[in-house]
């Protein structure tokens, strides 16, 4: 049975100028122990989809979905109190900005032990022992003294380690990492990714890595789902995606990697992700797509077969040889 099953998730925000659809028909199926990357540009709705799964969106958001099951629990229509028993325990999340994601008024020790008390009901000495164990697990030196530190006394990398320790404190079945390395130095980025993957191997939890960095995807994930303007446009195994992308958007993203550049100028994708007012009628990528036809501009694209990576495109590229013939 899938650990997390999401089908046709849509998130709309009520704004003063009408509703804005941030996530449009998001699908995901995760088995225990899976490592999946969700890739997309800023504004593609990748963070919002998972904030919806966690139940962390503000009240201005309207969330609808056909299926939203986590570990046998239906998240749709779950009471907030029941939801709180799941999040932070079986399903937890870390965020982009470690420096602002920790409360500046409390020691990191307090912030870690809090979850242990609420979810596991540990007593004071048990909490302290577990917090030290967690700090050692995420590679924070001198845990005894570090527990008494405030977030501003530590570096961004250390704070992200604290966030990770906090997220894995109750041995979750699923860890969602929302751009965990974006705000960090390149050297620290590698360390944090390494820590995440090694923790995943150690504990067997499922890991969702939300990122816009294809390099991060290549290093860590097994499955990749590419998001564009709130829709999933392609989903494949990581090797297959890098070798034979089926959606023009994926291909364009890969072509923009410096490592893959063949010409002197790095290829880019012209334009930006459509916002609230410039949403095209047909395929959402059509205004920026080099292969777009009139069909693309008028008709929404269908979702292709699993063999074609569920590619949401009228004309998937890199077709298997026999089909071309």
């Amino acid at each position, binding site marked *: 049975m899938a650990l997390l099953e999401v089908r046709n998730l849509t998130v709309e925000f009520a704004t003063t100028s009408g509703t804005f659809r941030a996530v449009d028909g998001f699908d995901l199926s995760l088995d225990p122990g899976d490592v999946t990357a969700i890739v997309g540009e800023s504004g593609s709705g990748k963070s919002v989809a998972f904030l919806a799964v966690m139940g962390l969106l503000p009240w201005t958001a309207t969330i609808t979905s056909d299926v939203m099951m986590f570990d046998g629990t239906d998240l749709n229509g779950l009471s907030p109190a029941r939801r709180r028993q799941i*999040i932070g325990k079986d399903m*937890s999340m870390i*965020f982009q900005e470690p420096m602002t994601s920790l409360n500046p*008024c409390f020691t990191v020790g307090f912030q870690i032990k809090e979850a242990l008390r*609420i979810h596991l009901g540990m007593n004071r000495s048990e909490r302290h022992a577990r917090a030290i164990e967690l700090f050692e697990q995420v590679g924070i030196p001198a845990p005894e003294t570090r527990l008494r530190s*405030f977030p501003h006394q530590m570096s961004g990398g250390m704070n992200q380690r604290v966030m990770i320790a906090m997220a894995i404190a109750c041995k979750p079945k699923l860890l969602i990492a929302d751009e965990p390395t974006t705000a960090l130095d390149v050297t620290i980025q590698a360390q944090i990714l390494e820590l995440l993957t090694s923790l995943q191997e150690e504990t067997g939890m499922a890991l969702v890595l939300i990122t816009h960095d294809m390099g991060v995807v290549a290093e860590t994930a097994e499955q990749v789902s590419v998001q564009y303007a709130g829709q999933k446009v392609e989903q494949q195994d990581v090797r297959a995606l890098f070798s034979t992308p089926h959606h023009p958007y994926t291909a364009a993203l890969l072509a923009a990697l410096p490592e893959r550049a063949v010409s002197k100028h790095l290829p880019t994708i012209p334009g930006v992700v459509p916002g609230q007012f410039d949403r095209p009628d047909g395929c959402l990528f059509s205004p920026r797509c080099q292969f777009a036809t009139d069909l693309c501009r008028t008709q929404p694209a269908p979702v292709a077969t699993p063999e074609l990576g569920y590619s949401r495109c009228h004309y998937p590229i890199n077709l298997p040889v026999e089909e071309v013939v």
Partner: protein
Amino acid sequence: MLNFLLSRLLTFIPTFIGVTLISFSFIRVLPGDPIIVMAGERGMSEERYAALREQFGFDRPLISQYWDYMTGVLQGDLGNSFVTKKPVFDEFFTLFPATLELSICAMLFALLLGLPAGVIAAIHRGKFFDRTLMSTALIGYSMPIFWWALMLIIVFSGMLGWTPVSGRMSLMFYFDDVTGFMLIDSLLSGQKGAFASAVQHLILPTIVLGTIPLAVIARQTRSAMLEVLSEDYIRTAKAKGLPPSRVTYIHALRNALIPVVTVIGLLVGTLLAGAILTESIFSWPGIGKWMVDSIFRRDYPVVQGGLLLIAVMVMIVNLTVDVLYGFINPKIRKS
């Protein structure tokens, strides 16, 4: 911490000198002559007037009068009142507990209502409670204190008869000052009903004096909470699965208190200024009423000394607030 305290105390020196200069010149700028006021309607002869002027030193240049005054101040002598002949210092500390008691009650009233009101308004932003509260706060802030006091007296003392109109204690009770705080002294006296009478006398002045601080604190708490509630660490706290009450009152309020404490420090000045009006209206025998009476009597030493002592009180309170900061905001404590 010690360095911090010392450097803050050093900045007190210019403020202190400034206050003495202002209070000294302010009372002398007012039209009216203290000696004429002392004589009252009877008037006095030219010779007597000249003799009194010489006795009080008003015939000498202002600069030398200021020098004498400052020499006294630095030796802890604020002079004697023209009217009662008692040392200003003693009078101030006899009356100060009354003002302090009223101010503390007004501040507690403002905090106990203002903090939760601001928090609840922030949580229900844009809804009915929020809008009602914020417009009420605006009215409370802009309302003239004396008018508000008169309205309350008319309704609660006049029409309903629930509270006394003025004073600190019913005439039925008499006991000696121990602490100067009527609430404590009435309990210590052991007289039945004395404490209740003290409370009854406090209610209206407390509400009147606390109204502006209440409005300011409620609005400040609301805006600080709104800002904090959209911070990343609040999302983290929610992501941990903490109950909303814990997220609001522990994770958010602690951070929101930082700007609120600043405002509270500034409000102490407002409170003492408000005390002057409130005490006059309710005949509350505190330093506010004392200052007003002294200004009418042109009692120079009292006005100078009283203003100076009030300014020192405000400075001490602000220093306390700065120290408090460190406890609330760890970032300041360590740096």
